[in-house]
């Protein structure tokens, strides 16, 4: 079964060992998705699979058959205009080297949806009630799977806050 990547159908690879990450980078040359550790520890390879964030290094390409993959190349608008979060990353300097950035952005977009659904996190005071308010602590906990070594954390959180404020308005 083919895989839909950013609204385009691509065939699944013949070699069953190929990860979704290597399919994107090495077979499709969609190199915006980054390989940081290839072990599920850094989050740089985060993509959206049917709208949910997944680590594409720990996802076999075969697992994405018949499903919808959205990568950083599919986040901007049809005319190429930056997504509100992409704009926020530039404005708030939520990046330095830029290598963890696509993963941070994909992760945060899915995280916003998790917040909207009311999914609790480790720091949510009342797990049954879900997050009452979107605090910095909530954002930080939920983004902790995306490592940044340059130390752009403050700017990343500010960019996410700006996105949440803009989409809530």
């Amino acid at each position, binding site marked *: 079964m083919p895989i839909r990547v950013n609204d385009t159908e691509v065939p699944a690879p013949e070699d069953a060992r190929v990860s979704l990450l290597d399919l994107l980078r090495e077979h499709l040359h969609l190199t915006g998705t980054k390989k940081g550790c290839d072990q599920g520890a850094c989050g740089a390879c985060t993509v959206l699979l049917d709208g949910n964030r997944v680590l594409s290094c720990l996802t076999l390409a075969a697992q994405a058959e018949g499903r919808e993959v959205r990568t950083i190349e599919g986040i901007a608008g049809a005319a190429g205009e930056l997504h509100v979060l992409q704009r926020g990353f530039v404005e708030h*300097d939520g990046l*330095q080297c830029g290598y963890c950035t696509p993963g941070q952005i994909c992760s945060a977009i899915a995280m916003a949806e998790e917040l909207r659904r009311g999914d609790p996190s480790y720091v949510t005071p009342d797990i049954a009630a879900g997050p009452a308010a979107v605090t910095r602590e909530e954002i930080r906990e939920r983004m902790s799977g995306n*490592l940044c070594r340059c130390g752009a954390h403050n700017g990343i959180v500010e960019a996410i806050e700006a996105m949440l404020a803009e989409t809530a308005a």
Partner: protein
Amino acid sequence: MTKLQNAIIGGVRAVLGQVPASWLPGGTPDPLIDKRVALGGQQSRIDGPDKVRGAARFAAEVAMEDLLYAAFVHSTIARGRIADLDVSDAEAAPGVALVMTYRNAPRIGVPPPIGLTNLKAAGNHTLPILQDPEIHWNGQVVAVVLAETREQADHAASLVRVRYDAAPARTRFEEGKTSASMPESILVERNRLDKGNAGQKFAQAAVTIDGVYTTPWESHAPIEPHAATIAWRDGKLIVHDATQMIHATAGSFAKVFGLKAEDVHVSSPYVGGGFGAKALWDHQILGVAAAKLAGRPVRVALSRASMHRLIGGRTRTEQRVALAADADGKLTALLHHGYGVKPRHSVCDEGFSLTGRSLYACESFDIVQHNVELDLLANSFMRGPGETPGTFAIECAMDELAHALGMDPIELRRRNAATCDPVSGAPHSQSAMMEAYDLGAARIGWHRRAPRPCTRRDGEWWIGIGCATGTFPFTRMPGTSARITLDANGDAHVASAAQEMGMGTATVQRQHAADRLGLPLERVTVAIGDSRLPFASFAGGSSQTASLAAAISAASGKLAIQLMRLAGNDTPLAGLKPNEIEFAEGGLRSVEDPARHESFASILRRAGRGELSAIGESGAPLEVLKYSMHSTSAIFCELRVSEVTGEIRVDRLVGAFDCGRILNAKTAASQFKGGMIMGLGMALTEETLLDERTGRIMSTSLADYHVPVHLDVPDIDVLWTDIPDPRTPLGARGIGEIGTTGVAAAVANAVFNATGKRVRDLPLTLDKLF
């Protein structure tokens, strides 16, 4: 060599002490210190849009036809030789193009080591690479597999069988200390500074403290793994590398493979985090050799485990600091004795013993460091080398001394802040450490700090505030050059083989060139990241901005002279001398009479020229030998420590920096914060774990080597004095590394303030607290 080096540097310093300041670089302060339009603003980084789209191209992302993928087999012993090597199964595995071992590898030279004299050298160690069966460290590459796909290469690598004859290896720190060596010098400073009879003063002092501080092996852990995409074409070498030393890498390839310099092309437009790690290590050399052997392009992309086997990190240190003071808190003796691991094949000095030489006035010093020579992967420079572990020891000791004196820690520093170089007596080019302390203390609310430890608590949490000084020396590299080209529209295009790994290199130099040439930002472009551009030194030692700024400034001076020549006599500028003109409004004008002006476009048009270019170079950095040129910072930390678990939560960090003028407030704030976050990791979690029985690194993944995550990083405030350094280009000193220094001490001092527990061993993990 180092004895000779000591003599030369000592001699030059002595001579320059007598030379008038006006003869030296920076003798006349850079006019752009004050005349700033684009500089100093909040310019967003120009590569930001490409990076947030995922369109910035990194080394492992260059598409090539017929590409082979490399996988490495690493030695599992620390010392000995390969007795038996069976690659038959690997060679027969699907998709394998070849297996390269010492038996069939091309005969190549040893990379020239990084040093002070050869700007085209990048080697991090002095050992031959896959040329013989000898094993020098646990993790050294013993075979390279090339295959059609990464999956095939990884599988085939698992089929290589190696048997070793192991030899006794030195892998234990404590044992290595007993035979440690004492080098003649550390970087450019004489090793063992014995001045003013420190031992005797210590013995006679009113108040003393004496402690041993230890810092572990640490890893740079950039998020982009080391990678290179390599091709040989018609005897010429093309390497798309992830490197913070483009020309030095190209020069090293030329030397190792016996090529002409012009036959080596290294491209590295973006580097996904460097911190000292993105240098020349074995993987590039092996990739180039394997591509040559296979006659096909090769991609090398290291796994996290391979990174830990092949890329050296910050070395482990053990530092004794003993301080003595009179009853008023004036330092009378500073003793700093330490050990750091430096294998014999390593070329990087971890100069932790330099910190105490520059910060505080003191009557006497006894400072020496020893190299523990183990059979390990060569150590390397990591963000803020020397001063990062050095400030942990010195600044914790200062906190201990303040406590022993019953004195506020900031007051202790105020009483001892150096007003000139404490060792040589050389004047500071600019220094305002206490202004930084005042800024930071006001921001963190230092008055809320309880003078007595174990005073503030909130439920299970003990609360504390601590501070520490950070510092890093100014460096400007000679040889870095830049070309400015004016096009027919009068727009400027700057080019230099400088490096971008997140510092905002092109962003800031575009601001600089715009102000230098009197152009609006949108009429300036900056190209970097490619060895075909004019020579640039490495991005290291926090030197790149100053070096590039000097080069662009020099190029602009040459450009002005060329423009005046082209302008001839039919110009409003006719008759003016070079020192009577300045760049303004997209052209040149008279300093005296601004109405006399002609645009670049007009000058070029009249001369019938489509473009005009000039190359300028950063000259010998003699200013650093005449002046004491160090940046300083005051780092503050507020944290909580759980009485139940010993967990530390850092609630706030404040960094106040005295680094000359700030060139871009937005990117500078990010760089300072980034440095501080690396310091936070050093304080709390980071430790490369070495199995001392086997010399093998155990923490070879980002799941085992713990860098700060979002939830670990609080809101960070950064401030700066913004006082210009009159001896530097743009009045600025480098800011890339100082952020990391001082942070671990500030955290440890805050832990002491919270709990009364003094931990002298990093990282400050829970088990060490209660």
